[in-house]
């Protein structure tokens, strides 16, 4: 009798311990991010012409990156983004850097930008349309 009552409780406890899928990137995506300049695909290209040292960070998970990515971008998923990993990928805190992920509904680039901002990076750009806009406008992309 006691065992019967115990089993559901144990099951609920075990379920609570199961690892849930990552909810990273599933945040409310703002229109603008304070201290970050938003750009579209064309502005990104113009930016690259002005800043040859421009870094492009792909904040998506690597599985998403397999669908295609902007050439010369580096892969740094938001879940792996921290001051140390940023320091490895980016030359300096005042170097221009663009973050992007899948599209306007994707929050990974937002999260990565918030982290970068916290780490003291100052020249931050946000390609809000992400890979979806890039592909839709017919710009070339590479696939793994």
């Amino acid at each position, binding site marked *: 009798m006691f065992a019967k009552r115990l089993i559901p409780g144990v099951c609920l406890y075990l379920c609570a311990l199961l690892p849930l899928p990552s909810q990273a990137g599933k945040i409310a995506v703002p229109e603008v991010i304070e201290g970050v300049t938003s750009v579209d695909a064309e502005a990104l*290209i*113009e930016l690259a*012409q002005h800043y040859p040292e421009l870094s492009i960070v792909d904040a998506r998970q690597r599985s998403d990156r397999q669908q295609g990515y902007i*050439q*010369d971008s580096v892969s740094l998923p938001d879940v792996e983004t921290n001051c140390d990993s940023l320091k490895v990928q980016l030359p300096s805190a005042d170097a221009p850097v663009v973050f992007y992920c899948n599209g306007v509904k994707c929050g990974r680039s937002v999260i990565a930008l918030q982290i970068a901002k916290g780490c003291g990076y100052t020249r931050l750009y946000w390609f809000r349309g992400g890979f979806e806009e890039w592909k839709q406008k*017919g710009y070339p992309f*590479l696939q793994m």
Partner: protein
Amino acid sequence: MEAEGVPLLTDVSMAILRQPVSLRALTGMVVLVMGMLGMSLAFVTGEIYHRLTLENQRLGLSNLVGLAATGILTELQEKARALGLSVQTGPGFDRALAGHDSTTLERLLNDQFHQYFVTAGEIRLIQLRLFDADFKLLAAASEGARTFPAERAACPGLLERAEARQGPERLQLISALCDETTPHYSLIVPIGGLWVRGYVEVIADPSYSLESLEHTLGMPLRLHAVSGTKLYQSASWPDQNSMHRVLAVEYPVQGDSGVVLRATLLSDVATLQAKLDETLYAILLVATVVTLLVAGAVFWVLRRTALEPIAQLLRQLDSYRQEGGAIKLVNSKIPAVKELHALQDLYRTLDHLAYTDPLTLLPNRVQFRECLERNTVNDRRQQAGFALLMMDLDGFKKINDRFGHQAGDELLHQVARRLAGVMRHGDVISLLGEVSGMPAQGDLVARLGGDEFGILLPAVTRQSDVMAVVDKLLRALREPFQIGEQDCSVGLSIGAAFYPTDAADLETLIGLADAAMYTAKRSGLGCVFAGSAAVSVVTTASPPPTSAQKF
């Protein structure tokens, strides 16, 4: 011989056409023609349905082919893009490009070209060309001699369009589908990412990719260039004799400057054709049954409402020609058609006018004469004989002269009523305006003209029987007639003759009766029998007036 035969045949045809056609045959022909028109309409409708269904099927398949072709060309673009971008991954490519090392670049391009051309096989490459950022040709790789001049792309104007772009547009892919003797697909891909360092032009054969339509749609395929050159044909393409079992769907593949090639696919529509044929036969069967039913119903209605009444009228009118029109319309049906009803009424009126005296409503001389003739004919069979009485009023002329024709007419009318009243009931014909049609079987009194009357007494052969009738007649006229406010009297002179005792010939018989009547009038006797030596006299209470009395 033929030259003579044709006019002869025409003459025969015209002669046949000039022959009168019966109303029944004409109605039948009209119904038949209407039925044939109905059947033709059903057949044409079925054919139109058949064609529209096939056309609809063709349109649907054409849309399907269009979707599949668009998908294949999109896939071609994806593969060409991937191929173009992969060129830059070759070892030493960046350095060779930066140094415009054409030899190295040519080798790298050739490696890429042959890798795709030989091993990948997903697209049929025609040429790979590498341009610097200013669209200057650096290297090219191709199989055989299918190359293009350095200053122009595979498709006219494409290179110029790519070069004319400014700003971010230069990073966009640009492609064209064109027909340069054979169809070509050309895609210009920027290399170097955000920092464009050059362009790769991938030139491929679109017909090779479109060959997969055969497997995608599961239909035999044939590709033609605009010039008509056959580019591809499935092994399962049927021979010309089997083409009627398939539906050919042609889809024009559009390029920038029009049609680049035409794809024709064959859909097996044998099952659909069989179903359509079944539908057509069903429509024709139903149409046949309905047409026959409607034609039969129309013919039946026309026959009941028009043909039979007309035929009956014709028979009646024909009877006048053959038998003198003595047949009565005893069983004539009332026609349903208004015009025919009016026609029958008209016929009755004309019949009445032809055989009735309009003043007295007694049978006229024509009807009296025909009755005499019929009784003569009947007598030959029955040997019954009859008596003929010819009568003339005495004193009528004076009344007529003194009081006018109107008074005379009124007098004649009243005399006629009284004479008719003497006749046995049912024997007087036409007194009430009844249309004649049957032979008279009883006594008949008729006005023969002026103040002359005639009486036919069938089966009466004895003077005593005649005298009894004469007595009744004279008694009937004995009472004065009321003409307006005047009373007046007239007498009656009667001449009688027996058939066939006095004469077997009708003309002679009439002549004898007339002569006897005039004898009676001259002698002042009431009635004189012809053919008898002695003159029979009927004693009357009212002697014939010699002058107008008591006016």
